[in-house]
C-alpha cells in the first residue's frame, strides 16, 4: 500500500504571484507524478498560500522554524540574516537574462560553499531559484538623458534605492501596492520595476512612459524545504522533491518570460510608450554609481567576496557581459 506523507506548503503571496505560481502549478504536481509512478509514497498537501499563515517579512522564519515544510523564501527581505543571497541587488546592470540567473543560482546554491553554508545554518534546503525579470523605469516622463532623472522622485524600495545613487533622483520607499497611488497623487513621478510584477498594478495608467534601462534581473529567493523535515523524508521522496525543484525552476523561468511578454503587449495596447535608454547614457548611469557593493562586502566579509566572484565568474562563463565589473579588485 502507499504510505501517505503530509507536507505543509505555503507562501506569503497568493498562488497567482510569479514566485508562487510554479509551487502550486509545477512543484506539487511534479512531486505527485514522480511518486505515483513508483506507487510507494503519496503526499497529502496542506496548503497555506497567500499569507494566511505569515507575511512577507517572515518567509525565512516560516520555513526555518517549520511553520511550513516547504515555502517560498524571499531572501530579498533577509538582508540582515541571509545577506549573501542578495549579491545581485548590490551589483546592478549585470544581466537581463532571467533564465540564466535561475540556472546560475540553482547551481551556486548547491555548489558555492558559503551559500550552501548559509542555507544549512538557516535550517533550509533550497530546491528551486526565484528571480525577477529586468528592472526598468516606469514614469510620467521618458528618460532620454541622465539629466532627465535630475530632481525626480521615484519609488525605489529597499536595496533598489542604491541604484539611484548618483543619478540626482530621490528614491522614495514603497511597494508594488503603493506605486499607483503614489504616482497618481504626485508623491512620486515613477518607479523602478519589472514588467511581470507591474502589470497587475496598472501603474502604466498613471506612468505611461517606460524607459528600458536594463538594471537587470535579480535573484529574489528560493523555494526551500525545512531541513529537519527534509532530512526525515524517505530517500525516494527526497529525490522526487529535488527533481520537482528542477522542473519548477524551468517552469518559473518560462512563466516569467510569458508574463513579461504578455505584460508588454497588454501595457502597450493600453497606451504605454516604450523608450530605450541609449548605450552611452546607460554607461553614464553605471559609471556614475558609487561603489554600492562595498557596504555589502563590509557586512559579509570574505564570504561575500567569494560569492561575488563566483557569481561574476558564472555570468561570464555563460556569455554575459556585466556593464560594470563589480568584482574587480576585491
Amino acid at each position, binding site marked *: 500500500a502507499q504510505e501517505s506523507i503530509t507536507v505543509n506548503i505555503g507562501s506569503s503571496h497568493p498562488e497567482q504571484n510569479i514566485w508562487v505560481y510554479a509551487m502550486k502549478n509545477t512543484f506539487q504536481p511534479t512531486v505527485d507524478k514522480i511518486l505515483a509512478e513508483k506507487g510507494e509514497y503519496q503526499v497529502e498537501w496542506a496548503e497555506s498560500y497567500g499569507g494566511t499563515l505569515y507575511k512577507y517579512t517572515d518567509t525565512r522564519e516560516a520555513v526555518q522554524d517549520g511553520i511550513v515544510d516547504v515555502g517560498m523564501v524571499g531572501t530579498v527581505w533577509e538582508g540582515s540574516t541571509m545577506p549573501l543571497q542578495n549579491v545581485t541587488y548590490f551589483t546592478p546592470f549585470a544581466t537581463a537574462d532571467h533564465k540564466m540567473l535561475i540556472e546560475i543560482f540553482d547551481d551556486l546554491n548547491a555548489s558555492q560553499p558559503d551559500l550552501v553554508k548559509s542555507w544549512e545554518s538557516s535550517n533550509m534546503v533550497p530546491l528551486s531559484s526565484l528571480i525577477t525579470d529586468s528592472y526598468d523605469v516606469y514614469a510620467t516622463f521618458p528618460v532620454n538623458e541622465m539629466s532627465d532623472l535630475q530632481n525626480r522622485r521615484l519609488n525605489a524600495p529597499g536595496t533598489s534605492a542604491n541604484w539611484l545613487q548618483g543619478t540626482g533622483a530621490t528614491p522614495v520607499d514603497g511597494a508594488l501596492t503603493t506605486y499607483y497611488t503614489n504616482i*497618481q497623487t504626485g508623491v512620486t513621478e515613477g518607479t523602478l520595476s519589472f514588467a511581470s510584477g507591474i502589470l497587475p498594478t496598472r501603474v502604466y495608467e498613471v506612468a505611461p512612459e517606460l524607459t528600458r534601462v536594463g538594471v537587470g534581473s535579480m535573484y529574489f529567493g528560493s523555494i526551500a524545504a525545512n531541513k529537519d523535515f527534509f532530512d526525515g523524508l524517505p530517500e525516494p521522496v527526497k529525490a522526487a522533491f529535488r527533481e520537482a525543484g528542477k522542473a519548477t525552476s524551468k517552469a518559473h523561468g518560462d512563466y516569467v518570460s510569458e508574463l513579461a511578454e504578455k505584460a508588454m503587449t497588454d501595457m502597450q495596447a493600453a497606451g504605454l510608450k516604450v523608450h530605450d535608454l541609449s548605450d552611452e547614457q546607460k554607461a553614464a548611469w553605471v559609471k556614475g554609481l558609487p561603489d554600492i557593493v562595498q557596504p555589502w562586502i563590509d557586512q559579509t566579509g570574505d564570504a561575500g567576496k567569494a560569492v561575488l566572484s563566483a557569481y561574476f565568474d558564472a555570468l561570464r562563463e555563460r556569455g554575459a557581459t556585466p556593464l560594470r565589473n563589480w568584482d574587480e579588485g576585491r
Partner: protein
Amino acid sequence: MTSLEIGFLLIGLLVGLVLFGMHIAYALLGVAFLGIWLIRGSLDLSLRMLELTAYSGISDYLFATIPLFVLMGLLVSVSNVGRDTFEVAEVLLKRVLCGLGVATVAANTVFAAVTGVSIASAAVFTRVAVPEMTRHGYKASFSAGTVAGSSVLGMLIPPSLLLIIYGVLAEVSIGGMFIAGILPGVMLALGFVIMLMALAALAPGFVFTDPEAAKSRRMDVDAGPHLTPGEILLKLVPIVLLIILVLGGLYTGFFTPTEAGGVGAFGALLIAIGRRSLDRRKLWQVMKQTGTVSVSILLLLIAASFYSRMLSIAGLPNAIQTLVVDSGFGHWGFVLLYVAIVFLMGMILDSTSILLIVVPIAAPIAQGLGFDLFHFGIITVLAVEIGLLTPPFGISVFTVHNTLNDPGTSVEAIFLATMPFILVMLLVLGIVIVAPATATLFLR
C-alpha cells in the same frame, strides 16, 4: 478528529469564552495557541507562531495609522471642533423632526471626512451629543445608540482605515477605494436621517422619555443655542480647514492615505493650540488616552491575526473556498452567502480581523464571478461595519458605553437602540449590491 472539526470546535470555544466575559484578546490568543498545538501536534510550533504574530504580525505601517487617527480624533474633541460642528448642525436643524438625532448624523458625516476610525467619532459625539440629547427629552439609550450608529460613517466616508486595509488586501488603489466610498457613505447618512425622522414620528416611545418636551422644544424659537450666520461660519472654519488639509493633501498628492492620520493629527494639534484649548497637562492626558484606546485595538489585532492563522492551519479558508466554488452558487448566491458570513463574523470579531480573514479568500472568487473589486470592497466594508454595532462584540457600542460611563445606560440598551441603524445599513448594502454604479460611478 480532522483538523477542520477541531477548527469548528475551537470557534465554539472562543464564542463561549467571549460570551462569558473573558477578555477578548486573552480568549483569541489562548484558543488559537491551543488550536495550533492540537492541530499540528507540536507545542513548539504553537510557540513559534505566537512569537511571529506578536512581532511581525503587527509591525506594519498600516497599523501605525490607528493611534494617529485616534490622536486626531481626541485632539479634535479637546479643541471642540466636534462640538462646534454639532452645534452648527443643531442650530440649522432645530425645526427638523428628531432634530438633535439628525444633527448628530449630520455632524458625524462632516466629521467622517477627517477621521479614519469609527471609534474616534463614537468617542467625540458621545461627549458632545448625548448630554445635549438627554437634556432635551431624548432617551439616554437612544441618544447613545444614535451616536454609535452614526459613527460607522467614519469608516465609509474617506479617509477610512477599513478602506485602506481592504485596498491593501485586495491589491486595488486605495485612492480609488476612497472615491468609491463617498456615494454609499452619503446614502447611508441620508438613510439614517430618514429613519430617525420616521421613528420620531411613528414610534416616539422608542426615541423620547418625554415626547412632548421634545416637540415643544422644536416649536420653541428660543430653545437651544443661538448662532448668527457669522458665528456659524467661524465655528465651521476649523473643521473645514482640517477637511481641506486631509482630503486636499490626499488628492493633490502631498501625502498618502496611510500618512493622512499623522498629518491630520498634526493639523488637529495646531488647531487645538491655536484655539488655546490645550496646555501641556491636557496634551499629555490626550496622548495617554490615545495610548489606552489604541493599545486595546492593536492588541486585539495581534490576537485576531494569531487566531486567523490558527483557522488557516485548520484548513478552514480552503474548505470555505472549495465549498463556495463547488456549490455553484454563481454571482448572487455567492454575494449573499459572503455577506451572511461577514455579518456572522461581525458579531464576534473586530472589523480588521474580518477583513484579514475573508478578503484574501473572497476577493479572487468575486473577481472570477465578475465583480468589480472596488464595488466588492464597498460591499465588504459595509457588511463589516454592521459588525461594529452587533452584539456580543460591537466595538462602536462599547466605545460609546465606555465613554459615557453612565451606570444608568446599559450596553444592552445601546445595542437595542442601534437596531434601526443596522436595518438602514442592510438596506443600503442591498442597494449597493444590486447597483454597482453606487460605488463605481466616480471611478472612471
